């Protein structure tokens, strides 16, 4: 069996969760992996719960939805509360937006707080790209895709006029010095 990583990104509608998932999936393809991705799909507007799932595997994927996340990226409290119970208990990693999310202690689970929204606001003067910051950091921590694959996926999936900003944000994440 090759490696299979189940990733769940979650937050609120408007935070760019679905775009982050699509970019991560695309990065997996760039790395020649098998990828399956699915996202929340409904009539809800900004501010409601939102989820994007990506499975990245060395082999073809049988069931294409996340059964138990190996990596959970949470950008809102409600999303964290909803999905925290569904993380792999031994090797699972949680990456959350600090201080938007306050965590609860779960035995053995590695939870890493990143001030992604604050970084985006202070460094880039635009908290809309917090999704790219946290995606970059998540990739840096977990190595689920290569840096080059991620950057090229951002280039392919972001409209021209926002490209420079999003690339800056993702690179800021990829190069973020953990305290």
């Amino acid at each position, binding site marked *: 069996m090759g490696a299979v990583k189940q990733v769940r990104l979650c937050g609120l509608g408007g935070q760019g969760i679905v775009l982050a998932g*699509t970019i991560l*999936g*695309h990065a*997996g*393809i760039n790395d*020649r*992996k*098998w*990828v*399956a*991705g*699915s*996202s929340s*799909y*409904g*009539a809800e507007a900004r501010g409601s719960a939102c989820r994007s799932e990506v499975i990245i595997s060395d082999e073809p*994927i*049988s*069931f*294409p*939805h996340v*059964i138990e996340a190996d990596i959970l990226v949470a950008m809102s409290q409600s999303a964290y509360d909803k999905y925290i119970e569904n993380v792999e208990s031994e090797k699972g990693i949680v990456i959350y937006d600090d201080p938007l999310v306050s965590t609860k202690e779960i035995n053995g689970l590695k939870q890493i707080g990143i001030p992604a929204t604050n970084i985006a606001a202070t460094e880039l003067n635009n908290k809309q790209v917090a999704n790219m910051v946290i995606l970059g950091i998540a990739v840096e921590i977990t190595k689920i895709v290569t840096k080059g694959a991620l950057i090229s996926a951002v280039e392919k999936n972001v409209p021209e006029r926002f490209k420079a900003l999003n690339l800056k944000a993702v690179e800021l994440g990829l190069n973020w010095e953990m305290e």
Partner: protein
Amino acid sequence: MVLKEMKSTLPPGSYYFSGNEAAAEGAIAAQCGYYAGYPITPSSELMHRIAARFRETGAVFMQMEDELASICSIIGASWAGARAMTATSGPGFSLMQEAISYAIMTETPIVIVDIQRVGPSTGQATRPGGGDMMQAKWGSHGDREVIAISPWSVQEMYDQTINAFNLAERYRVPVILLSDEAIAHLRERIEVRERITIFNRRKEKGAPPFGAGDDGVPPMPAFGEGEKLLVTASTHTEYGLRKTNDPLVQAKLASRLHYKIVNKREEIIEYEHYHVEDAEVVVIAYGFTARSSLFAVERLRQEGKKVGMIRLKTIWPFADRLIRNLGAKVKKVFVPEMNIGQMAGEIMKYAPCDVISFSQTNGEVIHPYTIMEQLERLL
């Protein structure tokens, strides 16, 4: 030669498409020359991509006023010589039924993609369902044969759309791609090959356009090719002349429309089997649910449980012989579906064993653990 090798319209390689996008690309690869449609959730992205890509390829895209106009328009385009397609979801598919019957009677090759959502009626527009399986077969009056295919992956949304065009042209019949929201919005890596095989419509100067041909499927001229061409959905002779009082003409035509498909079902039908050889319980599944089922079956096999799975890739014509033979070998078959036992009922007609139907119509896909739980009870 009617089969032709074509260069793919997309550069070969890996893509990260949604099911809807893959079906649109499959249509373009299959040389679809005309698309008419009316947008409906959850199929709309298919039309969006067609609209954008047809500008590059030069094919004709029309947004129609509704689904009735959409399907009538593709029937016309098909008679003008184009490979033609539309896409919709359950409510739109219901509106198309009358014209699907017309296309069957006039032997018009068309492709209809139905991205199923949970019903009845408007239901939950953004949620998957499997409620159109029987509608695809029996949605309009008259004994009618169609071909319907159920893809289980984004790769198959691409491959089977190409196949749908080939089957439509080969058998002069509407072909329905019975997909659903879960596959249409799933994104997966797909591989686009360099070359694809296309079936070119058979032509024969002066041959009757509604005759028996070599195998029940007559050659098909287009308007403007110089043939004397009459197309009517009333009962007609082999040259298309209306004969609405003659019992012999009616019997001959209705019977040919039936047998041209049914007699070729071994050629048309595709399926896959997994761990069936020594299985006591076999899951029969299709579409997304077959993904959940295979996951469950593989897990139970690891625990030494004697379970297997058949995946129906072709829904109509129905794989009656396969099910009859399978039912004679196993104790039970288990049929999980996102409808209230539509295909389970069909399987019961042929399987000489216990058939257990499992229904879930809450707008959610069936989770592999749910299937495992159900199977453990049966073992």
